[in-house]
C-alpha cells in the first residue's frame, strides 16, 4: 500500500497571481532574446502543469513576436529511474508531441525543479523521439536539492527550501487559482 504522506499546511506564498504572470512574461522575453527570435523554437511541457505553463509561454511569445509555436506534452513515467521502488502500478498518461523535434530547439517546461531526476527522464524520452538541435530548460520554481548535474536555462523564481517542505504550483486550469506556495507538514 502507498505510504501515507503527511498532511501539509500552507507556510508562505511565494508568487501571487500577478508575480506568476510577470515571471512567465520575463521568461518568454528571455527565450526570444537567447534564441534570437522564435525561429525553429518548439515547446514541450511535462505532464501535467508543465504543459499548461508551456502553453502560456507560447501564448506570450505569440503576443510579443506574432510567432505561433507548437506545444507538445511529455509523460515521463516510462523513463523513471524509480519505477521499481514505486508502490503500486505506474500511472501512464499519453505523450503527445504532434510535430517533429528533429533539428529544432526544444524548450522543455516544468513547474518545479527539485532533484533533477524528472528532467533526466525527460531528456531521455525526448531524445528517443528524435534529435533536437538543442534542448533548453524553463522552470517556474527552482527549489534546489539537485541530485544530478542539471541546470535550468530560464527560472521564474529561485526558492531555497528544506527537503521536508513542498512547493505547490497552482494554476487556474487545474486548481482554480494562479499561485505558488510553500507547504510544510502539519506537526503531529
Amino acid at each position: 500500500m502507498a505510504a501515507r504522506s503527511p498532511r501539509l499546511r500552507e507556510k508562505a506564498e511565494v508568487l501571487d497571481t500577478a508575480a506568476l504572470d510577470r515571471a512567465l512574461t520575463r521568461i518568454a522575453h528571455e527565450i526570444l532574446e537567447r534564441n534570437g527570435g522564435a525561429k525553429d523554437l518548439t515547446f514541450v511541457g511535462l505532464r501535467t502543469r508543465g504543459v499548461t505553463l508551456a502553453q502560456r509561454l507560447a501564448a506570450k511569445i505569440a503576443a510579443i513576436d506574432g510567432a505561433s509555436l507548437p506545444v507538445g506534452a511529455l509523460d515521463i513515467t516510462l523513463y523513471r529511474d524509480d519505477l521499481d521502488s514505486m508502490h503500486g502500478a505506474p500511472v501512464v498518461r499519453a505523450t503527445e508531441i504532434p510535430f517533429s523535434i528533429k533539428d529544432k530547439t526544444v524548450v522543455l517546461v516544468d513547474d518545479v525543479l527539485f532533484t533533477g531526476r524528472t528532467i533526466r527522464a525527460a531528456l531521455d524520452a525526448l531524445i528517443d523521439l528524435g534529435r533536437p538541435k538543442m534542448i533548453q530548460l524553463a522552470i517556474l520554481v527552482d527549489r534546489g536539492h539537485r541530485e544530478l548535474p542539471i541546470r535550468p536555462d530560464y527560472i521564474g523564481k529561485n526558492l531555497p527550501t528544506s527537503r521536508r517542505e513542498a512547493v505547490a504550483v497552482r494554476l487556474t486550469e487545474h486548481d482554480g487559482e494562479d499561485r505558488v506556495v510553500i507547504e510544510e507538514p502539519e506537526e503531529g
Partner: protein
Amino acid sequence: MGWTRKDLVTIRELEAAEILTLIDTAASLQEIAGREIKKVPALRGKTIVNLFYENSTRTRTSFEIAGKWLSADVINFSASGSSAAKGESFVDTARNIAAMSPDVVVVRHSASGAPALLAKALPCAIVNAGDGAHEHPTQALLDLLTIREKKGHFDGLSVAIVGDIAHSRVARSNIHGMRKLGMTVTVAGPPTLIPPYAQELGCKVSYRLEDAIRDVDVIMMLRLQQERMHAGLIPSLREYSRYWGLTLDRLAAHARPDVLIMHPGPVNRGVELSPEVADGPYSVILDQVAKGVAVRMAVLLLLAGGRSAEGPSQ
C-alpha cells in the same frame, strides 16, 4: 483507481474502475507504435515468458512485440517440441520456468482454469492469453478500447455478439466487460451455440440475425470453427452462412448506418462475414489488431512495472 492485482486472469473478477485503468493506460501507450524508435525503457531487465499450449500467431506475436517495445526480455515457449511433449505436467513445466525467475508468465491453454491454477502456484505475475472456452481478457480489453475510441464512451451502448457464443472465450470476456461498463449485450446464434447461462450473464438472447443487429451500436461477429459442424451443432457451413453470415444487404436492411463491425479474427471470409463487410467502411477489424499491442503493453506494464503490492518480485 490504481492497479494492485498480481495477475490478470479474468475480466469477470475486475471492477469497472480496474478495466478503465487498463484501457486508459493502453490508450496512453498507443502513441509508441507511431514512433520512429519504438522502444521505451520501462521494463528494462524484466523477463516475460510466453507459455503457449495452443497455437496462436496473433496473440503471441502481439505479447512479444508489447514486451519488446517496453524493453523486457521475451522468451517464447511453445508446448510442441518442449518437455510437455515428453510427459511433464503443466504445473511442473511452469514451476521449472518459474525457477528461472521470470517477472511475467503469459499463458494460453486449452483447459479452462489453467491460468488461475498457475496464478496460485507461482509467485510471478500471470496473464491469461486465452484458456479453453473460459476467458480471453486482453482480447476483450482491445475490443473495449476500440469501441471507446470509435464511439467516445461506453455507457448505454448496445452490442450484438453473433455466432458460437457457447465455445467462445472472447464472447465471455467481452460480455463481462461490457456489462460492467454499462453496455447492453445481445447474444445471437443458432440455439445449439448459445449457452444456457447467457441470461445469467445479463445478456438478451436472439435466434435471428436480423433482430439481433437492429439498432445496435456494435456488431461483434465470432469465428465459426469447423469442428462445430463435425460435432453436429450446425448442419453445414453453407447453411450457417445463409442464416448467420453478415452481408452488405443484411447490414443495409437492418443495421444502423453508424454501426461498428468487429471480429476477433481470424475471419472465415464468406462464412460469418462477407468480404465486402470485412473490408467495408463499418469494419474496425484492423483497428482491433493494432490496439492489441497497446493493450498488452498496458497489461505487462501494470503487472511488472512498479513493485507488486502483494509479494516480492525478484
